């Protein structure tokens, strides 16, 4: 098909200008939905990165009663030593526990003042050789009932809670963005329908003199594609902006080392951006293709 490029650009350009309000509405809807989609994806990625890091340093803590006898302490230490699944044990006496407490609550000296080393429980920090979450949990639970043990705490549950919470949150956001994407496709569909209605005389004449179907369709499809692409472009900007803001927020608070693992790699951002552009183009082309095939039968 011999279609002149300048004809295509002229027609598409004038279509985009003619329905400027609807065009903008489509672009904004695509942008908002894709931005949500992209941010949800990155959030998920961040949580994945963070939990992976935490899981790497996995350990559980066996807290002893403050009044546990030396024999009870020795019994637990021996039992831990004897377990083949245990890679490393560190014993935190009350002074060490107090040091850690002071580190953790550095920001609130009034809290530190109210606490004496003798108020704090002694504990064993256990690094298991097998970091599989289920294995760790099973190992940890074996010590819960030993005499003198107050409780066994593993980070596992906390991590799982965070994970399931972010999973739910990102699922809701993703679901919302899918609905918004559908709305965007519908808006583009309508914009293209309006554009075709505005040009119905031209289309009639084109059919009459024997313009091919693709010649008639292409400017409208390109119009939809451009709307999707522009919306996706705005969304990519928003995603980069959000990532940059998060980066700065985290590096400003360098005391929170835990959160640093939250940072998403630049290549992940690029990959997400590419995905958004592809989705934008697909949504735009799809919306206009449906409109064109519905209202342009020859």
């Amino acid at each position, binding site marked *: *098909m*011999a*279609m*002149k490029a300048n*004809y295509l650009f002229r027609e598409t350009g004038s279509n985009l200008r003619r329905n400027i309000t609807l065009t903008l509405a489509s672009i904004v809807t695509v942008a908002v939905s894709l931005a949500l989609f992209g941010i949800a994806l990155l959030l998920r990625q961040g949580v994945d990165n963070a939990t992976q890091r935490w899981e790497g340093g996995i350990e559980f803590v066996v807290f002893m009663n403050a009044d546990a006898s030396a024999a009870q302490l020795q019994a637990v230490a021996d039992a831990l030593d004897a377990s083949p699944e245990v890679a490393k044990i560190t014993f935190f006496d009350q002074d060490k526990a107090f040091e850690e407490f002071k580190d953790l609550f550095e920001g609130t000296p009034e809290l530190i003042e109210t606490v004496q080393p003798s108020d704090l429980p002694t504990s064993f920090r256990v690094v298991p050789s097998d970091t599989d979450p289920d294995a760790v949990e099973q190992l940890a639970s074996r010590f819960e009932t030993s005499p003198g043990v107050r409780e066994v705490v593993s980070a596992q549950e906390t991590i799982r809670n965070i994970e399931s919470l972010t999973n739910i949150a990102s699922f809701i956001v993703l679901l919302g963005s899918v609905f918004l994407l559908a709305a965007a496709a519908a808006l583009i569909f309508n914009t293209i329908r309006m554009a075709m209605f505005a040009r119905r*005389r*031209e289309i*009639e*004449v*084109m*059919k*009459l*003199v*024997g*313009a*091919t*179907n693709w*010649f*008639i369709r292409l400017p409208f499809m390109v119009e939809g594609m451009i709307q999707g692409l522009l919306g996706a472009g705005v969304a990519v900007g928003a995603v980069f902006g959000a990532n940059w803001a998060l980066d700065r927020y985290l590096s400003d608070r360098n005391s929170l080392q835990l959160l640093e693992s939250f940072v998403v790699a630049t290549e992940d951002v690029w990959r997400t951006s590419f995905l958004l552009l592809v989705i934008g183009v697909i949504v735009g082309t799809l919306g206009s293709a449906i409109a064109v095939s519905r209202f342009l039968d*020859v």
Partner: protein
Amino acid sequence: MIKLENVTKAYKGEVLALHEASCEINKGEFVFLVGPSGSGKSTFIRLLNKEEQPDKGRIFVAGKDIGTLSSWKVPYLRRNIGCIFQDFKLLPNKTVGQNVAFALEVIGRPNHVVRNQVPAILELVGLSKKMNNLPHELSGGEQQRVSIARAFVNRPLILLADEPTGNLDPATSVGIMRLLDRINRTGTTVVMATHDRGIVDTMRRRVVELDRGTIVRDQARGVYE
């Protein structure tokens, strides 16, 4: 050039638009389709252009059975068929020259062809001076000349005219008919649906009369009634 074999066409719930119509039109003929409103003249024309599909029967245009034509080939069929209408169907926001050029551009003709052909065809229809006017600045007769120029600029084998003088006064109609006659004499087959008794009676060409979808008369050098 054109052949209808037992063509029947009915619209939804309506009476028959065409019933078992058979008719053959040779290359270079000039044929009037006459008959009252609703007798099937427009359907006849729209079937030739494949704007409508027949319910029964076969239609041949330029030797091809257009019933078996796949939809992507229909545009190429239409490039061989020029069409003019009672309401001209000109694009109001394009000049006379642009209206004619549009017909060439959208079928992918190169720029130099468009630049050569448009002034030449406007010369033929006698509108060289109005090339840069908008359609609403022209009289009805002039507008119809533009639409003829647009239909003929691609040198089609067949020219279909659906009541081309329906909106024009008798004097102007004579001018349009002279133009169609000239086009016919270049070898183009012309099929024209009309109510205009005066034109049919003066031209004395082949007349096909339709009545409620049936061909009731087919007469060489005929008159309106």
